């Protein structure tokens, strides 16, 4: 049977602040357990949380970038539940007056633009991390509260996603926006981007949707894709048999590749939200909205379009270059520095720079070759030849030296004393009529012989690759 699919997604992104949401403890990842805690983030009695301004501004920035209406009155609420990773037995979140509501994000799915509604954008604190000892007979669990109180922005879509492709397009676009506006690193392996999905199916043509299933603990985009594929087939199978879908919360089991009904925790979704009495409300005026709006850069979709029209590169290339903001910035920095065509710069960046970064598993921000250095090299290309330029490039990426010092050190400047070299070459051509004749007959080895002779006379100072080019040109044009 054919079914319509309705999916909604909640995304938690860790904001890239130095300190937690309500205290000055560090948010850095990978420290010894419980070394980044204090009475505030441990929820000891008598403490007073105070909001981190940067975390709030980042949330506002996110809401604006996602085209939300910004509430002029914003407050925090207590979300009450008992779980050991939550030291206060409540999470400070927002329920009544979120930072932003009614936003949207445009995604491209199979070449077509689609608008996904954003229900709300709000700010909340993360919980601690539970560690379950591997031994199954261990009678205890362990808790690390370093993550407790780390600021998260939560982005909730309307149930507008209709397929797994939609979900993928949305997650990709959202991550791209969060990185562009520099509010989150979105590092999956550090859990700084996490998802919860809700999905329901209904028979095509039917008016009422089936029961909603929520899936929690999705720590990567891959997990979201896998669990939704699994859920769709699980629910289809049940519906085909005429069974009902139970409204429930399920957990994704990465190892077994199945979703399972969640047995404990919040069977009752009774969070008894109420306004957080320890925090005062925030009034957001037009001035602060304008101040934050000014910090939002041109986003990738716009930039991609502009790159094709302004720099005459293909949409495909523009797509690669604008995938990350630092890369797009790098490209535009190069464009500004030179009269070399943007198309050629784009070729270098896509073919060479990205290849090296890939090999080194590194990022453009940490790249040894600055835009100025790359441009200098490309401008030298006509002098030193394409293949040498590539060689110099790889040397540059390994050593961080600039092109001209490498060319100098390695004696790659045959044309800096071009007259001398020309003279030597002419002489060699004159002295070796046999080799010239052989080359004319198609004997390629004659070329190596001539190059070898030149190397001998120049004591190895000439670059063989360039010599080949020169000889070829001279011989083929009978110069």
């Amino acid at each position, binding site marked *: 049977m054919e079914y319509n699919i309705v999916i909604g997604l909640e995304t938690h992104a860790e904001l890239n602040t130095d300190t937690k949401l309500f205290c000055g403890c560090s948010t850095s990842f990978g420290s010894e357990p419980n070394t980044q805690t204090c009475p505030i983030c441990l929820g000891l009695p008598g403490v007073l949380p105070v909001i981190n301004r940067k975390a709030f501004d980042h949330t506002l920035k996110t809401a604006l970038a996602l085209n939300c209406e910004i509430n002029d009155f914003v407050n925090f609420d207590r979300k009450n539940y008992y779980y050991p990773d939550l030291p206060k037995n409540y999470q400070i979140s927002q329920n009544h007056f979120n930072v932003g509501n009614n936003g949207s994000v445009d995604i491209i799915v199979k070449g077509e633009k689609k608008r996904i509604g954003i229900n709300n954008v709000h700010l909340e604190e993360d919980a601690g991390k539970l560690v379950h000892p591997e031994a199954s007979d261990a009678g*205890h669990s*362990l*808790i690390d509260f370093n993550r407790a109180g780390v600021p998260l922005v939560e982005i909730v879509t309307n149930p507008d996603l209709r397929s797994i492709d939609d979900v993928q397009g949305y997650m990709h676009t959202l991550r791209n926006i969060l990185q562009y506006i520099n509010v989150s690193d979105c590092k999956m392996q550090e859990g700084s981007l996490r998802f919860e999905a809700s999905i329901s199916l209904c028979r095509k043509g039917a008016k009422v949707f089936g029961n909603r299933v929520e899936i929690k603990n999705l720590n990567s985009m891959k997990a979201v894709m896998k669990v939704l594929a699994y859920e769709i087939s699980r629910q289809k199978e049940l519906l085909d048999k005429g069974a009902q879908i139970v409204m429930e919360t399920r957990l994704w089991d990465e190892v077994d590749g199945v979703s399972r009904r969640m*047995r404990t925790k919040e069977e009752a979704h009774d969070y008894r939200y109420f306004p957080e009495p320890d925090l005062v409300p*925030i009034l957001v005026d037009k001035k602060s909205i304008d101040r934050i709006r000014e910090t939002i850069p041109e986003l990738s979709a716009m930039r991609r379009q502009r790159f094709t029209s302004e720099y005459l590169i293909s949409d495909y290339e523009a797509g690669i270059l604008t995938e990350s903001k630092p890369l797009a910035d790098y490209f535009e920095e190069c464009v500004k520095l030179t009269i070399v065509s943007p198309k050629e710069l784009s070729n270098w960046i896509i073919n060479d720079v990205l290849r090296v970064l890939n090999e080194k598993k590194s990022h453009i921000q940490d790249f040894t070759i600055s835009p100025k250095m790359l441009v200098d090299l490309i401008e030298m290309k006509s002098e030193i030849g394409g293949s040498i330029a590539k060689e110099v490039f790889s040397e540059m990426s390994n050593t961080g030296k600039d092109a001209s010092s490498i060319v100098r050190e390695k004696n790659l400047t045959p044309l800096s004393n071009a007259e001398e070299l020309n003279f030597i070459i002419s002489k060699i051509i004159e002295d070796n009529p046999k080799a010239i004749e052989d080359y004319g007959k198609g004997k390629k080895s004659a070329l190596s012989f001539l190059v070898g002779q030149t190397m001998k006379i120049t004591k190895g100072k000439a670059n063989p690759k360039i010599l080949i080019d020169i000889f070829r040109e001279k011989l083929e044009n009978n110069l």
Partner: protein
Amino acid sequence: MDIDPREIDNIAKLSRIKLDDAEKVKFKNQLVHILEYVEKLNELNINNVKPIFYTSPLKNVFREDTLKPSFHRSNILNISPSHVNGFFKVPKIIE
């Protein structure tokens, strides 16, 4: 005014407290008294009164994103009932 006994069960469960039957009756009666007391507010006409969430006039209180030293771990762990290897230790959580 009365409270459904199941409501008492639910509140006890959410609060993670065990009540015996006598206590259930006792607390139910106390809750009824409280609710009846608060219900007096319904006698007032508040159609033109805006809801208030905060009684303090303070607003927009922020701190800058500046690191402060965290507490020494041993001080924090030592006030907990149980800890091991730098972690807080709690009864096993089944998922």
